[in-house]
């Protein structure tokens, strides 16, 4: 069995190259059909996401995937050359395991990729392009991905600003239902964070902006209440989470504001997320009991810390993948010797039968007892002679010279000229 993988990803190729190779879902079946029609290809599947395009095949004698790629996409082979990576056999297995476990992703540990691989597999399987060896490989890859997810903490922490904000809010308030968010100012990142908070169930949203129309627009878009900017300080105590992103040059909230807010809230905690530059919240305010103030650098530091944590977990995940590749290779190798053992037994049985027929002719009529004795004798000899080669074949699968031993046995017994009948 020969696994072969060729492709480009976010590391190997810039988006200009990736977008020319990307295959829209509607054209995927066509691409898979063209792939399996290539000479030598037994099975094939295609994975196309915004970060990678990969072709995976299984064949008996290997195939020219490098030639197929430019031909199918109508791209100049020279432009592709430096961007394409190719893996064979064990390396291809490792790559498939790593991709499915999200170790090869742009954001390591992100959960979408496994679903994408599963979908690509389902499409190819539906077309009959994946049936035996690739089927075994992909099922194993899904199991490995699951193992990585359960045995390491690779996907458990947030690495984007918006998700860190949500994670922190949950660390403070637990469930976010019935909590109120105050979005002061506007901006892409603030909107993203608000959207995330909403997705996590916050109850109520207030908007305030120096330009009141903007606050009205936002409150309409998100479904909330717009508050005139001059009432900001009077209304801020209604909010549990205050998300600030304005262009104000100085602090909008100082320590004394914080003290007043806490008094009005009867010391119930507040979380200020200040993503404005220059900052809008005095860090001094964060010293008050029950007041939590995070600025953009703090959020980024948490995200970076989580990323580092993920990297550490990724190293553990790589170990798991390596182990699984080893296991898989063993399994494939032990599968590979099965046909040889079968044909070896078959070959010897044919010889034995032929010799039995010959001796019967020479001996003339013999009794049933004698016939049984000869039968047992010849069988015993054959089995004893075959015992060592068969056990050697079986036990050699884990050794480095397995392929050599396999080939030698096939040659000695002249098995290459015949195929086993199953």
């Amino acid at each position, binding site marked *: 069995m020969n696994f072969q993988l060729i492709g480009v990803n976010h590391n190997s190729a810039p988006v200009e190259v990736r977008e020319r190779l990307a295959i829209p879902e509607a054209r995927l079946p066509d691409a898979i059909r063209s792939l399996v029609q290539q000479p030598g290809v037994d099975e094939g599947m295609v994975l196309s996401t915004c970060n990678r395009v990969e072709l995976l095949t299984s064949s008996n004698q290997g195939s020219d995937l490098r030639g197929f790629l430019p031909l199918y996409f109508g791209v100049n082979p020279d432009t592709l050359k430096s961007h394409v990576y190719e893996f064979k056999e064990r390396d291809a297995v490792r790559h498939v395991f790593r991709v499915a476990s999200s170790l090869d992703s742009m954001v390591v540990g992100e959960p979408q990729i496994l679903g994408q691989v599963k979908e690509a597999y389902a499409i190819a399987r539906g077309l009959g392009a994946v049936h035996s060896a690739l089927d075994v490989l992909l099922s194993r890859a899904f199991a490995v991905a699951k193992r990585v997810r359960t045995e390491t903490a690779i996907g458990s*922490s947030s690495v984007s600003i918006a998700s860190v904000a949500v*994670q*922190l809010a*949950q*660390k*403070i*308030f*637990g469930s976010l239902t019935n909590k109120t968010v105050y979005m002061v100012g506007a901006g892409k990142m603030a909107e993203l964070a608000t959207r995330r908070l909403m997705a996590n169930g916050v109850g109520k949203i207030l908007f305030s902006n120096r330009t009141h129309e903007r606050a009205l627009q936002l409150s309409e878009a998100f479904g909330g209440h717009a508050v005139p900017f001059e009432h900001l300080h009077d209304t801020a105590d209604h909010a549990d989470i205050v998300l600030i992103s304005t262009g104000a040059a100085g602090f909008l909230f100082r320590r004394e504001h914080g003290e007043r807010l806490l008094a009005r*809230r*009867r*010391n*119930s*905690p507040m979380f200020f997320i200040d993503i404005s530059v220059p900052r809008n919240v005095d860090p001094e305010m*964060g*010293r008050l*009991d*029950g007041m*939590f103030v*995070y600025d953009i650098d*703090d959020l980024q*530091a*948490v995200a970076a*810390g*989580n990323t580092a*944590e993920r990297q550490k977990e990724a190293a553990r995940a790589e170990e798991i993948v390596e182990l699984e590749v080893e296991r898989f290779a063993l399994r494939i190798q032990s599968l590979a010797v099965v046909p040889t053992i079968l044909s070896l037994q078959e070959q010897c049985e044919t010889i034995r039968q032929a010799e039995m027929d010959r001796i019967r002719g020479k001996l003339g009529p013999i009794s049933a007892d004698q016939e049984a004795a000869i039968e047992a004798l010849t069988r015993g000899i054959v089995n004893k002679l075959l015992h060592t080669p068969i056990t050697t074949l079986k036990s050699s699968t884990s050794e480095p010279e397995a392929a050599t031993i396999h080939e030698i046995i096939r040659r000695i017994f002249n098995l290459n000229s015949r195929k086993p009948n199953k």
Partner: protein
Amino acid sequence: MPLFWLRVALSLYGVGLLYAVVSLWGGRPVLTRIMLPAVGLGTVFHFVAIVEYGVLGLVVAPSFLHQGESLLAFLLMAFFFVVYFRYKTASPGVAVFPMAFLLTVLASAPSSLLTSPSPGVSNRWIIIHVGLILVGYSALFFSFFASILYLLQERNLKAKATSGGFWSRLPALATIDEIGYKCLVFGFPFMTLGLIAGSIVAEARFGSRYFDDPKILLSILMWVVYMVLLYTRWSAGWRGRRAAYLAAFAFAAAVLAWSVNTGWHRFIAAP
């Protein structure tokens, strides 16, 4: 036989103790998996032991230090499971398991069977008094530990260090706050009724002399702090540092009241 069950419970609590110690250094997944079944089974055996003591008539006056300790350990474990099932957090175990283990060690010492109640003390009121007080103690302990967790979690959040180790598995600040507050509210009536029951018994039997006892005075002090805690919480929403200091004070008073005079009130000992 009850002592045997108590020792079985003790060895199972040992798993919890190990878990508590190890989890401060990051924890072991194996230990986390077996911890809950182990301490759960331990609590069941502990219950069996307590019931048997009751049936054998050995528990008539649990103010005998050892039975009281056993009961307190059991109540702590029961509280732990209530909190665990309500808030899905095993964090209190870090403090509860060592505490329960220690109390059970003391309770399962051989001498605990030798202490027999003197005829004058076997009284329903005393059982009620001690039982109520112990429930109050357990609740107070939980509330105190929750306020420490609150401080630690608050410090973590302020230091902007939220990832890694035992602290990343702490429940949310609001959840810790709720556990502490609910325990306070739950424990207060028990403590109050327990003290009243005790006063009735002592008043009836010994007159006003019982106020000389430091244990009584400490208990009353503890009760006052308890009330201040609740009052500041209701009126000003005190939590965090200030609440933790008060809770620590109340807890210290409770521990002192517990340890002073090793289980006997002075007015009983004095003729």
